[in-house]
């Protein structure tokens, strides 16, 4: 059945798809597969790799440090995801209105996104400084004895979460704004004619039509959260005393510092499996709450 039209269609698909697909295969998928092979070797990058089989996976899966890192990563995600999503939705909805200077404010909310983590970490460590920090000073005014934040093993992860949410809000805001702007005006007009209040418009028009964008932001934020690294590295270096060690920190250390590229790759593939599982779960579960228009 591959007639003229068939070949023309293949050509069309190729034309549109290949500019992205070829570089993807060559520069991402191929190195990925190579790393899958590396995960089955012993390789310090200085000597030729030696084939080991599944030994690295056994090592990683039975390693108490990896378990701790994985639990910490999940802890981070559970704290970070809801805060950054709800916060971003709120800001996006507020800034989507016809407000004077909306562009200006969007720019301001976007500033932390573009500021480097080195600077953001320095600032937040100072704001959350247990003695003389602004946050504990304010808490002190209302009679609360502020915690040790990033110097305290129990409060170090919450400190990282707070700084990360603050930094990433603008990023998610921008994704959601793009979604908000594709909601057609006539739906709001219809709602107004029906006598809907602002809150009802938000509840029955804006939020349902925003759900595809929320899902999208959620999946990306989740993938990012599983690979959290920069902020941990610059704020606590995984400390105090290993309290905030995360999976990516161990991947990076193993790969280039400890000369254990095989283990680093095995860890990455275990992480991959977990992320994939969560993503598939979210995509399956989406039918219950994501509303596709029309």
């Amino acid at each position, binding site marked *: 059945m591959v007639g003229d039209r068939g070949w023309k269609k293949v050509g069309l698909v190729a034309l549109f798809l290949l500019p992205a697909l070829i570089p993807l295969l060559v520069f991402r998928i191929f190195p990925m597969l190579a790393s899958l092979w*590396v995960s*089955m070797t012993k390789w310090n990058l*200085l*000597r030729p*790799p030696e084939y080991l089989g599944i030994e690295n996976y056994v090592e990683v899966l039975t390693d108490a440090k990896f378990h701790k890192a994985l639990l910490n990563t999940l802890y981070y995600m559970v704290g970070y995801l809801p805060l950054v999503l709800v916060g971003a939705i709120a800001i996006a909805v507020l800034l989507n209105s016809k407000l004077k200077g909306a562009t200006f404010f969007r720019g301001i909310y976007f500033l932390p996104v573009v500021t480097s983590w080195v600077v953001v970490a320095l600032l937040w460590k100072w704001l959350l400084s247990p003695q003389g920090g602004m946050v504990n000073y304010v808490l002190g005014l209302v009679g609360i004895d502020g915690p040790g934040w990033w*110097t305290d093993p129990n409060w170090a992860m919450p400190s990282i979460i707070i700084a990360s949410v603050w930094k990433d809000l603008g990023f998610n805001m921008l994704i959601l704004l793009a979604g908000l702007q594709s909601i057609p005006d006539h739906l709001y007009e219809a709602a107004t004619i029906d006598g809907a209040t602002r809150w009802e418009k938000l509840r029955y028009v804006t939020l349902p039509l925003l759900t595809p964008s929320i899902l999208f932001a959620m999946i990306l934020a989740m993938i990012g959260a599983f690979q959290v690294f920069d902020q941990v590295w610059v704020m606590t270096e995984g400390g105090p005393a290993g309290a905030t060690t995360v999976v990516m920190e161990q991947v990076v250390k193993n790969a280039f*510092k400890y000369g254990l590229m095989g283990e680093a790759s095995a860890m990455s593939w275990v992480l991959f499996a977990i992320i994939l599982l969560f993503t598939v779960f979210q995509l399956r579960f989406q039918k219950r709450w994501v509303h596709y228009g029309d």
Partner: protein
Amino acid sequence: MHITKPAARWRMAGVGILATTALLLAGCSAGPAESDGPVTIEFFNFTAGADHEAQLQRIVDAFEDENPNITVKVQNAPYEDYFTSLKTRIAGNTAPDTFELNYENFVSFASSGALLDLETAAPDAIDKSVYFPKAYDAFNFDGVQLGLPESFSVVVLIYNKDLFDAAGLDYPTADWTWADEKAAAEKLTNAGAGVFGEYQPVQFFEFYKSLAQSGGEFFNDDMTKATFNSEAGIAAAHHLVDKVGNTMPNEAQMGGIGDDVLFQQGKIAMWHNGIWQFNNLLDIPSKWDVVVEPGNTQHASHFFANAGVASASTKHPVESAKWLQYLASSDLTVDIRLNEDWELPAVADKALLEPYLSITPPENRQAVFDSLDSVVVPPVIERQQELQDIVTLYLQKAVLGELSVEDALNQAVQEVNALL
């Protein structure tokens, strides 16, 4: 049989992917013929940074003047990222001809066959007699000279004279012991005002040194077992851990500000740090000086050394060796390092080092050389980086009170033994 098949297939795929790496790492041991035409050699380093880039360039220029057929292409990377880049380039068989290694990383590179045997490859280019023997031998691995000692630094006790004057205390002397330091630190500490008697990082290097100051050994003689949970080890760990939050600020008291900044602001009276800090203390308001670090049962000073090494796969072994020799020991290098406080050259002739002593502050620069009399170098294993991180982690657990000092050391010993 069925079980081995997929594995074999993976192996094939892997061989394809990584064939180059394997091939090139086998090492080119072709003859050390010097090329006739112009040659460019790369030099990858982490010590120049922003502060010494110009000085390094001066050394390069002078070397190129003397050797018109050789061009040296310098590349800088910060220490944290240096090894990521270097190891990737070695794995991809595009190793720089020459590069730097610090002593702690030297063994893993040496034992992997990544480095050139300099004395064999270019016997005429190397003159070992110019080097301080202890430093030269540090880069000998299994009887093969794989690096030239390029520079070294030592750690001394840097102290704020004004704080001592204000407290009415005598300045530290070379005879001081831990007990003297502690007594002074207690009198100097005024936590309410944010002023502390001392600062000494709680990590592997300080622990190793404190252990040596107490006469302890890190490993047994044949390096099959870690022994740092001995009496001396416990004393060393207590020495470090017990200061924190008392005579030395803890993390919360520091509030994210570095110990260097605190010393510069006059908030720390005695500071265990390296001679690389001298340049940053020229403009501080307080007067300061240095002294050999106090010991416990004996003196011991830590010493950080860097070597210039050549890649085993370099196509220009002779030119590389010539450059490394020049970089490590030429008169110009010695002159630049001494006059601009860019670490110290590891040269044998002490007379060459004289000009260093005339630069002030600090007045007592002699302490830097006195420290060399009792210098200790940690034994290095192939999995050194993991070892250092383990020791530091357990010391931190002791600082937080999660473990007693004894338990922390016992657990650290267990984990370190697993690396051997």
